[in-house]
């Protein structure tokens, strides 16, 4: 229910940006579903991708696409789709389950970097919320703060002043507490480009070119962070600090 309300507010406030789901995209989605049920996964993939091509970003669509890819033995496509679905709907347990399932099939070990407790908290919250939800929370703090200031300016009575002081305090506290999560989430989704390796094995070189030494190997489905670009090559890094260059088309961004 809360989700619906938030969704409604988002729709109202984000009006200039909204691309309404055309009926053809919905039809393609449903068509993909029926193809999937018949086990024709290739056809389902095509239908879902056509729906996506209309510019639509929808969690259920991406999730179903991920399932179709996985059934069709395309691990990287599946992980890419599930990751996109998770960004749109972070608390959906089915998406999480299937993404974990797909990740367990990655051939190589992804280095696990031990994280400090604050980093873990930031990550947990970031994974459970969308950027819009956090933005709304910030806005709430903002409005409460100004409501308090407003009251403080206009009213003289001690009762009103107390309420005003509380409101100001609460407003500031909300914003201060939410700010790290908003910036962490923004950093993850907006300022950092994450990509998925699309081919079975990809060699990472020390520089943008085949003649550079091979440093390490990346496997299909692994998620990397893109830290630079040059000509046809991308510089990528994985947790643990390893950085190398791979041909750009071998990894696709989430």
């Amino acid at each position, binding site marked *: 229910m809360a989700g619906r309300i938030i969704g409604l507010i988002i729709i109202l406030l984000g009006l*200039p940006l909204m691309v309404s789901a055309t009926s053809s995209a919905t039809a393609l989605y*449903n068509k993909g579903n029926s193809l999937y049920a018949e086990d024709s996964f290739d056809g389902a993939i095509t239908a879902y991708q056509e729906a996506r091509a209309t510019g639509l970003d929808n969690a259920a669509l991406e999730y179903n696409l991920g399932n179709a890819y996985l059934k069709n033995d395309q691990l990287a496509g599946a992980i890419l789709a599930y990751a996109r679905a998770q960004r749109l*709907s972070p608390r959906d347990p089915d998406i999480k389950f299937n993404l974990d399932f797909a990740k*367990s*099939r990655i*051939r190589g070990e992804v280095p696990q970097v031990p994280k400090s407790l604050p980093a873990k908290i930031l990550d947990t919250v970031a994974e459970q919320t969308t950027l819009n939800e956090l933005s709304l929370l910030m806005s709430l703090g903002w409005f409460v703060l100004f409501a308090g200031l407003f009251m403080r300016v206009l009213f003289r009575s001690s009762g009103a002043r107390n309420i005003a002081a509380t409101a100001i305090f609460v407003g500031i506290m909300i914003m201060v507490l939410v700010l790290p999560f908003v910036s962490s989430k923004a950093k993850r989704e907006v300022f950092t480009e994450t990509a998925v390796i699309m081919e079975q094995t990809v060699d990472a070189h020390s520089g943008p070119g085949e003649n550079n030494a091979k440093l390490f190997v990346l496997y299909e489905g692994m998620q990397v962070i893109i830290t630079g670009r040059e000509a046809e090559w991308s510089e990528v890094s994985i947790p643990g600090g390893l950085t190398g260059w791979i041909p750009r088309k071998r990894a696709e961004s989430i």
Partner: protein
Amino acid sequence: MHAKAYIVAGLLLALLLPGALYAQTNRFTAEIDRTRLYLGERAVLTITLSGPDVNSKSSWDLPDFKPAFSIVSQSGPSRQTNMQYANGKMTSQTSITTAYELQSRKEGTFTIPSMQIVLGGRPIRTNPIQMAILKVDTDEWRPPYLPYLQARVDKQEVYVGEQIVASWYVLFQRGLNHLQFQSLPVLTDFTTADMDTARRLMPVEREQGGIKYREGFLASMALFPVRSGKAVIDSLMISYSVPSETKKRGLFGDAFQEQKIVKSDPLTINVLPLPAQGRPADFTGAVGTFEVFTKLDSREVKAHDSLNLQVIVRGFGNMDYIQEPNLPFPESFEIYPPEVEEASQIKAGRLEGVKAFKYIIVPREDGVFSLPPLSFSFFDPELDKYRTISSKRQMIKVIPGRKRDEPPIARIGPASKEEVTILAEDLRYIKPDADDIPDQSGRLFESWAFMGLHGLPLALLIGAVGWKRRLEKLEQDVGYARFKRAFKVGKTHLDRAAKKINKDDPAAFYSELQQGLSHYFADRFNLAQAGLTREIIEKTARECDIQEDYISPFLECLDGCDMARFGAGTGDRAAMERTLEQARHAIQQLERSR
């Protein structure tokens, strides 16, 4: 007495003189490091020329060493100059050293003749050197020279793709310092796999063909010829250093090292093509001897649970030709692409490889199934024919498992890569059909409407602050408050006066009118209404720079009221209305002067 001194002096001089003379003598020497050689062996001849008369133009004729020897290499001539103080005089001495490496070519005795040079006006000669070159009487293979780099193969003739082991050994007599690989052999006719490389030289004593030497293992490789015909294992080149023959001492007294290079001879291998007849249909190019096994982690499994199958191929052959086996599984088995693991080890001097394909299988229906045997074809060079081997048939019993809507066993997690992967459930099913799938992207902070909304409370706050200030100013600044309301106050009085016209009470009317005028003026200029006299009004008007036009109607009106109240005042209605109008006009005029 004196005579004794002379004798002593004479003796001393006699003793010293030879030394002095000696330092002044020119010397020409030829030395060889060995005088007895076997045919093919090498020796080093060092020729030294030294003395005070030696200069850069000093040279001699080299004798003809043929047919016994040929000159392999020459180092030097290197020059050294010594300065000496003897008996108060400074003398210098130069020495030139040249070294020749000679290779023996013919057996027999041979004398290196003496060489002559003229120095300081006198000829000096080297001593002749007698050499003996012996022939070896056995047919045994001997290293043609030392140090020698030898390449060995375990087979001279193989089939395409069959494993050959090539090893390199270095044969030497004296020490080898700073041994390094200079260039690796070109092996384009083969696929290669490194087997062993020596980290330290651990020589073994050997004697062959009458020569004692030491043999050290360098490296070995497994080679698989790529095509039929002649395949060449090209030279390996190594470098080592030996003490220099010509420069004996360095700056700190240590010997100079000279770097030398030695190459192995190229080897040619005869490669036979694989026979065309008898070739099985599923042959993919593997040559060698192989075995294949299948391993199941369990014979009994529940439907929808996973099972691990390993297909292991082991053998002496090029493992790259072993491809993913064709698994004819029953239809109801879901199979995921395998994980491939490779390893190799050296067994009995040859490279043995192991390749394991690890499959995860999920049976969907219950029943008893058999995994048919897996066949694998290769060419066995030991038997000179193609062989097909297969694994054993395996039976799997699938018992009814959980239905899909039962909760899964919570054992999901990142799978470890060494152990077997355990998954409790398959994928969760897709999301159902919908009437409408909305776009869920679109970031709030990218929308102008959203961000603009945040400006609203700020604007409201500024407005509130402004309004509050105004309120306070009104409260605190009385004069300001009065100033603001002066017109209203005046108007209220005049309206009341207007009503009093009707009541036919001229005194009340004029009183009210006057009240209105003075109240207005008092408020307007923040004066006390009570003692407001005409003089004060005039004074204030002057002080505030109010023009005549604006203030005189006001004063006139006021005078008129005065007169009417305290003297000749008629109850004339028209007169009253006129006065009222005058009053309104007067106030308006004053208002204009703000």
